[in-house]
């Protein structure tokens, strides 16, 4: 007996005590019966399975195998469709439960259909978009710089290497919320030169760039190190200097590999722009809070969530697409 289906015992020729294995017909009875948990597809599965058994009894093995295969296909469809249908049904039930309490809290039509609320939220969200757009641009360059410094060779460069390592360790270790609080509130209060004239938004860009620069520099570093040393040897042997080798040979190859993980970190950054509300910026989250307070509901938060999804979902789909393409390219080699 196998896990996926039951072999028809009748077929097993036991002459001379030998059990035949090759040529068994699988009827997938267990799977078919189990899939009855979702009857629309479970019933066809069971019917095919039963038909397979009866065909075996009639010694029509080829037909029996086909029927068994159908039973198996329907059983898998039961898994796929059944699970999804039950999950969605459960969610719908949740929303309707408590005589529409969930609906009132999260999707109250008073806010959901109010153009003014949407307008105000969009104005706030624009700030979030600006923050992550600037931060991402800065991170792309800054992280590369940090990564290159961490990879500088030789004893002479040990101090800067150490500095860069310390930066990465510190900013990877502090929650971004704390970094935003410390920089957004602390620096202006301390009247630190240069940055004391930054606007709130610039402070937020600074804070998020520092945090994510630390993450992304590690991705860069791994990417650079993944380029085989023989590539650098070949470039150096042609007379290219250390930095020319990095610039023309190593980094371009590294960038190809680190695209997906960097984009992944950027999705995190985009979501973390919600944290800037703690220093009182009128971003989407604070505006949602005001709207909610006025209406006595949480709906504006749901609306803010939808705004984030509108940005991050296309981004993640794009990322998936790149990953798939990359896999194909690598497989093609």
């Amino acid at each position: 007996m196998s896990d996926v289906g039951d072999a028809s015992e009748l077929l097993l020729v036991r002459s001379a005590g030998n059990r035949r294995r090759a040529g068994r017909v699988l009827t997938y009875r267990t799977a078919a019966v189990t899939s009855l948990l979702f009857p629309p597809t479970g019933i066809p599965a069971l019917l095919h399975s039963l038909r397979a058994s009866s065909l075996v009894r009639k010694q029509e093995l080829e037909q029996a195998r086909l029927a068994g295969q159908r039973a198996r296909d329907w059983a898998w469809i039961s898994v796929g469709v059944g699970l999804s249908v039950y999950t969605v049904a459960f969610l719908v039930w949740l929303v309707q439960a408590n005589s529409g309490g969930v609906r009132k809290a999260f999707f109250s039509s008073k806010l959901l259909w109010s153009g003014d609320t949407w307008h105000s939220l969009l104005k706030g969200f624009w700030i979030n978009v600006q923050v992550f757009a600037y931060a991402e641009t800065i991170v792309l360059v800054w992280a590369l710089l940090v990564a290159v410094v961490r990879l500088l060779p030789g004893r002479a460069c040990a101090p800067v290497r150490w500095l860069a390592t310390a930066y990465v360790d510190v900013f990877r270790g502090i929650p971004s919320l704390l970094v935003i609080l410390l920089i957004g509130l602390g620096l202006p209060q301390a009247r630190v030169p240069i940055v004391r004239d930054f606007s709130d938004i610039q402070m937020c860009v600074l804070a998020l760039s520092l945090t994510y620069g630390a993450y992304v520099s590690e991705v860069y570093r791994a990417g650079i190190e993944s380029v085989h040393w023989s590539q650098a040897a070949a470039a150096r042997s042609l007379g290219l200097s250390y930095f020319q080798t990095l610039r023309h040979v190593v980094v371009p190859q590294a960038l190809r590999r680190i695209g997906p993980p960097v984009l992944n970190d950027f999705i995190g950054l985009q979501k973390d722009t919600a944290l800037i509300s703690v220093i009182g910026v009128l971003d989407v989250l604070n505006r949602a809070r005001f709207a909610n307070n006025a209406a006595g509901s949480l709906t504006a938060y749901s609306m803010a969530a939808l705004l984030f999804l509108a940005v991050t979902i296309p981004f993640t789909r794009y990322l998936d697409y790149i990953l798939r393409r990359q896999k194909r390219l690598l497989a093609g080699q």
Partner: protein
Amino acid sequence: MAFLEIDEVHKHYGQTQVLNGIELEVELHQVVALIGASGSGKSTLLRCINALETIDQGVIRLDGDRVSGPGIDVDSLRCDVGIVFQSFNLFPHMTVVENITLAPRKVLGIGRRDADDKAMRLLQRIGLDTKAKEYPDRLSGGQQQRVAIVRALAMEPRLMLLDEITSALDPALVGEVLTIVRELAVEGMTIMMATHEMSFAKEVADKVCFLHAGVIYEEGTPEEIFSNPRRELTQTFLQRIIEAGRL
């Protein structure tokens, strides 16, 4: 004074002493073949000559100038000394012509147009001008290695180091690569090559050096080494090669 002088060169990795006092002179236009068992230090010696590795002791001179040790300009040394590796090491993110023109453009400062022209002429010579716009992974091993040779030649080196450039190739592709080396030799390029292709070494080399235990154990003309080796270990090494049917 010889063109390339290798004088008492020592080199170790951790505990292993790889080069143990190498003495070797290479004249201009000479072709020198390095033979020896695997691990005898042939690659290491070649890599020391163009400063991909530093040496512990001794001195290497090119055209009378010291090119090892402190204070040397490794990048300009490498413009004079080209190396081709066993594993091609073409840049996979660049087309064939970009592979060839990168160093002339960035190191010698030649304009793109001129560099491209020169690369195309070189590619034409080896019959690969139709592949100029291809990426290396679309080329056969033999084609890749020919491009790697041309890439080194584009810098117009005065000395070429070839490190077992046919070892990673299908036997059927070895010929096309050796043809180029043969032509280079005929044109008078100074060549130092580590090789397991004994018959080829016999054919093109002016001098054959047998490396053993980090020293040049025996050197001589191809006739002397292959037909009439004087020292015992050279004899056993060649005996093994002949038994393996490779000479």
